[in-house]
């Protein structure tokens, strides 16, 4: 199963943290720090996989990839295929790009609730829920549309904001 998803920037600041088994805040922070240390020590042009058994226990590994200024990290156990996880991350990023249009770090910072919405359509309870891009986008958009509607009903146009996010 997938243990968690972490997005952090080049300075090790977390941008999105989601663990599928509860971890107390201190442990999360510790995990983020140790992962960041590992990622920093990786040279360029090597594999995207790292064994993480020293942080999360036996047989847990993580796959990471940098997109522009951000590190994306998926943590998972041996019941998942490493390379497929890399592609799942790709699906996630593609979805973000489609939902945010030219996604950048600041989108991630401000809209991590929307990021969670997207992620929830891909991974649920540590299992891959769906990977069909159009289904995911449809689901996310329906949620957003409804939210927009509910916003405008109760608040009028005052929160039209930027695409109602």
């Amino acid at each position, binding site marked *: 199963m997938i243990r968690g998803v972490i997005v952090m920037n080049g300075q090790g600041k977390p941008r999105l943290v989601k663990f599928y088994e509860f971890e107390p805040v201190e442990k999360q922070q510790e995990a983020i720090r140790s992962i960041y240390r590992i990622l920093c020590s990786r040279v360029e042009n090597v594999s995207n996989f790292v064994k993480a058994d020293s942080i999360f226990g036996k047989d847990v590994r993580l796959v990471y990839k940098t997109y522009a*200024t951000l590190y994306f990290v998926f943590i998972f156990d041996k019941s998942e295929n490493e*390379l497929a996880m890399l592609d799942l991350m*790709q699906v996630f*990023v593609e979805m973000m790009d489609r939902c945010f249009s030219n996604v950048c770090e600041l989108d991630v910072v401000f809209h991590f609730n929307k990021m969670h919405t997207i992620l929830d359509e891909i991974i649920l*309870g540590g299992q891959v829920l769906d990977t069909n891009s159009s289904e995911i986008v449809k689901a996310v958009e329906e949620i957003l549309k409804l939210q927009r509607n509910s916003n405008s009903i109760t608040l009028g146009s005052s929160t039209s904001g930027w695409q109602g996010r």
Partner: protein
Amino acid sequence: MGSQGGFGKSKEFLDLIKSIGESRSKAEEDRIVLREIESLKARLGDPNTSKFKLKEYIIRLVYVEMLGHDASFGYIHAVKMTHDENLHLKRTGYLAVTLFLNEDHDLIILIVNTIQKDLKSDNYLVVCAALNAVCRLINEETIPAVLPRVVELLGHQKEAVRKKAVMALHRFHRRAPGSVSHLIANFRKRLCDNDPGVMGATLCPLFDLIMADVDSFKDMVVSLVNILKQVTERRLPKNYDYHQMPAPFIQIKLLKILAVLGSGDKKASEQIYTILGDIMKKSDSTTNIGNAILYECICCVSSLHPNPKLLEAAADGISKFLKRDSHNLRYLGVGALSRLIKISPEIAEQHQLAVIYCLEDPDDTLKRKTFELLYKMTNSSNVEVIVDRMIDYMISINDGHYKTEIASRCIEVAEQYAPSNQWFIQTMNKVFEHAGDLVNSKVAHSLMRLIAEGFGEDDAAADSQLRSSAVESYLHIMGDPKLPSAFIQVICWVLGEYGTADGKHSATYITGKLCDVAEAHAIDDIVKAYAVTALMKIYSFEIAAGRKVDILPECQSLIEEMLASNSTDLQQRAYELQDITGLDAHAVKNIMPKDSACEDFEIDKNLSFLDDYIRRALENGAQPYIPENGRLGMSDVTHFTSQENHESSFHALRFEAYERPKPAVALNIPPALDPSTEVPVPELSYLADIQQPIPPVPSASNIGSSELKLRLDGIQKKWGRPTYSSPVPSTSSTDIIKNQNKANQPISVGSSNAKASTVSYDSRKQVQEISPEKQKLAASLFGGASKSDGKQSSSSSKVSKPLHRPAEKSRSVTTFDTTIVKPSQPPPDLLDLGEPSFTNTAPSVDPFKQLEGLLDLTPEKPASNAFRAGTTDAPNLMSLFTDMSLNVQGDSLVNSISNMIDKNGLGGNTGAPSTPQTNKGPNLKAALEKDAFVRHMGVMPSGQDPNLFKDLLS
């Protein structure tokens, strides 16, 4: 509107993020966050705060907690928000609680009710939100509250709901398997759902269920194979394709399940062979996901009942992986190899050089994976090389966790396959020197035992030679102050036992060294205890030999210090040492016989030698012995004899407060208290210590104790001569191969020549690049390159090899070319639809700069413009952003992405950088505006690197 910054968030939130981004130190960041927490506390408590303000505060709260600060004061507000009617607020509430709370939190009880209500909602989005929360927040006790409704939802008309309901049930299964055991039929039914998404989701719980109980699902093999067949034949809707691969994630999951179902089951395996062969034949090794499927196929093959054809195809796949430049693929290749090697050990030989290259790769992950492979293929012929490599690597890394792992692996294979005791001791020395504190203390004992027992009974000269070489090597390294404690203990023991045995070193020299050690490790009581016992042995050997003993002044002071030690164990040893030096040679000889480490003790548990004494005592009117449990409340402290270190201190006086009654009773029932063996002597009331002979001379207990450490009951005797000569499970794969050669040669001479030449074409090519060193290494690891050639020529199943190799060669050459030709071009598409290994080739060119021309602005202007837009001219910016409606955006991107896929197919990065730009034309302006704004926001403190702000995906 005036208070709104960009991104639909309030100015305050923007400011918070900006100031955190600009903060120069962790302390500064903490100050900012603490201030934020204070203000959130005040506002969340304010009853007049509007709901939508509240929503933002909750999000800020999540943000604060993500940065590692305690936000528990606001949990209750998040819980309250889940009760809200408004979907937007409700979702935010659910999101916050799923991130904040664990399933046993007290507040969960307040949410369960809401979840129950929401699961019944007409609006399927509400139901979905509730199901998301169910997957995270429901624990064993609350499962019954939602279970009936979740089961109902399995039949919901919306597939999104069915999908999530399946996941929720899966979650329940993981939490409490009993709660859903009666619902397994529902999972099977969902597998036949009309919607492929639901079917795909159902595979997750099925995988777990099948893992737990394979047999009751054997009947599903046929239908799962059928599904897999349909998937690969592209019967699923087109939108399940990913990088032109039909529903690859579903394929992988199905392969995983089939691997479990077919494992060790010939009949089931036979049903799977065909489809597996087809997928491997069709596999597309140009995309990431294609390789992921191929890897999964290989894993599946290795777990099924062996099939020669598929094994060959799998071996072929592995060689494809190992020949690639991509680290990811080589990583998979090594992983696949270590799986397959269990079934067909001979395939490793084809890949010996590739494996050695992986071993020397700068990538740590790859290296570790390769060490795992080596560990799995260790045998008595390559153990020396492999352990050497492992130790070198162990020394080079700092990661304590992995160091421990690799050290214990070293010891394990060294014990199992050691070619000689000498080598074993040297290897152990190295392991101890660098990771002594990390390994199990049992290992130290087995090392001592090996030195004590030596080569065996037959060769006393070799034994003493071994011992003196051990003594020499220890005297050489014991000065190092950083040696781990466990190793020092071994050294002390060996020096005490054999330091003066060969007469090379004087007692004075050895005792001086031992005193130094005790001094250098002044805080380590165990080391000191070992040192003192060693001193005692040396002195008693000297006395027994009739030589005069003069105790060194530093030794004298050491003894005096220990006489006053806090540790009773140390005191005891010091007293014994003091006493022993005052005794005559004859007594000492009896107490401390030389070279007696291997002698077994006869322990007379009945203490029959005391019978006489007891009889006399009884005759003289002494009270008969009452068993300990027979005299309640009586303390038997008086006759406690201070005993040997940790081991016996466990039996010794128990001063701990609040001792539980149970262990005390258990302690009192050693065999000695058995009525039949009971010894009726009041004097010897402390019978728990009866394991050791009650010493007639006080100091003799010390022999017993030092011996005690050597009686390693639990340790199997794995090393030493017997094992060396005994049959090793897989003596060496080359042996088998040689046999095969002999068998096959007369038949396949003609063809083997032809094949050998093609093979040598390959290997000759490699020979040019590889150093003789590596060849030698390969030879020692795999039993020699020449042998492997012979092997390949002999196995007639490799006929297809030559056909594959040139093709692969040319392919790998072309990929290599592309990287060489355009090394300086930035990957135009960060989505990176092709090889992952190329993503980082050259991030030096800033696409942002390339884009600037398109806006007709100088680099500075957009920034300042956007700055105003972000602060004062907010409405303008808003309108600009709202122009690009999400749908339009999405479509154009879909097009552009699929265009790129079509164009680039393999590379993804080979296209000119302008391609995606023209495709994404209309977005550029917006992207740039955003960029500039982001830059200004200073989320990233370092402004000097404009690259940081290029779009994630442009």
